[in-house]
């Protein structure tokens, strides 16, 4: 489904509409950054690209093709990643190779699956107490709090907190697989 259905509200400054757009756009944009995963911190590039996309969204004109805002966001993210590569003095031939890889079309992804959401909730209920608490803190922090601070809130050492978050995710991934969810191949 064309994510540009949210564009008029986003352009008028509706952050909630940008959130609805993000839920569909983020996985596809992240997938587009996969070629850069060993060369730049793609999470930082993606967040910066999304902030810039929000800023320029009022000037985006639909061009008759679907997902104009998504395509613009992908270009912003790609250019940011390339800029980081050049700043890090990565070999020009390697920059060109990654640029070609990133030029491929954005992956088509389906909307979030309500069955998957139910399965994730069910799997979370089955987690042991400490991993469940650790991943809940990570999720509730919404990217706004460092792990050092989250560990303090949990009353755990940083090392223990990180091990519990990792264990929770591994258990959730196993549980989702048992429930029939297949992760997309990289």
């Amino acid at each position, binding site marked *: 489904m064309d994510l540009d259905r949210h564009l008029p509200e986003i352009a008028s400054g509706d*952050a909630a509409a940008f959130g609805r757009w993000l839920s569909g756009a983020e996985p596809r944009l992240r997938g587009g950054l996969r070629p850069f995963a060993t060369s730049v911190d793609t999470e930082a590039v993606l*967040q910066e690209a999304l902030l810039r996309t*929000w800023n320029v969204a009022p000037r985006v004109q639909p061009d008759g093709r679907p997902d104009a805002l998504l395509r613009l966001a992908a270009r912003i993210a790609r250019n940011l990643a390339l800029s980081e590569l050049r700043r890090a003095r990565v070999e020009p031939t390697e920059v060109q190779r990654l640029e070609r890889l990133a030029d491929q079309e954005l992956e088509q992804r389906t909307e979030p699956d309500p069955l998957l959401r139910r399965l994730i909730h069910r799997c979370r209920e089955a987690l042991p107490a400490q991993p469940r608490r650790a991943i809940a803190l*990570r999720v509730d922090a919404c990217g706004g709090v460092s792990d050092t601070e989250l560990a303090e809130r949990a009353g755990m050492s940083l090392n223990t907190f990180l*091990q519990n978050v990792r264990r929770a995710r591994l258990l959730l991934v196993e549980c989702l697989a048992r429930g029939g969810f297949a992760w997309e191949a990289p």
Partner: protein
Amino acid sequence: MKDLIEQVVSAWRPRDLDGGVRAHPSWYDLDEAQREEAFEETVRQRTIEAGLDAEGLSGTAHAVLARIQGIRRP
């Protein structure tokens, strides 16, 4: 080393003086294979975060929304 990867999987990122999003300090300590692992684990983590969120938003999406709600468009 798994702890460093786990820190990079977080959606938390430091800001520079201009408010720009900077790389996680631990990311620089990872080798190529670990950076790839961090990327794939991040994909799984964000899927789980979005699945647990009432609005279907990941930690990345929430971090970005928190930023845009705190600043004006230029």
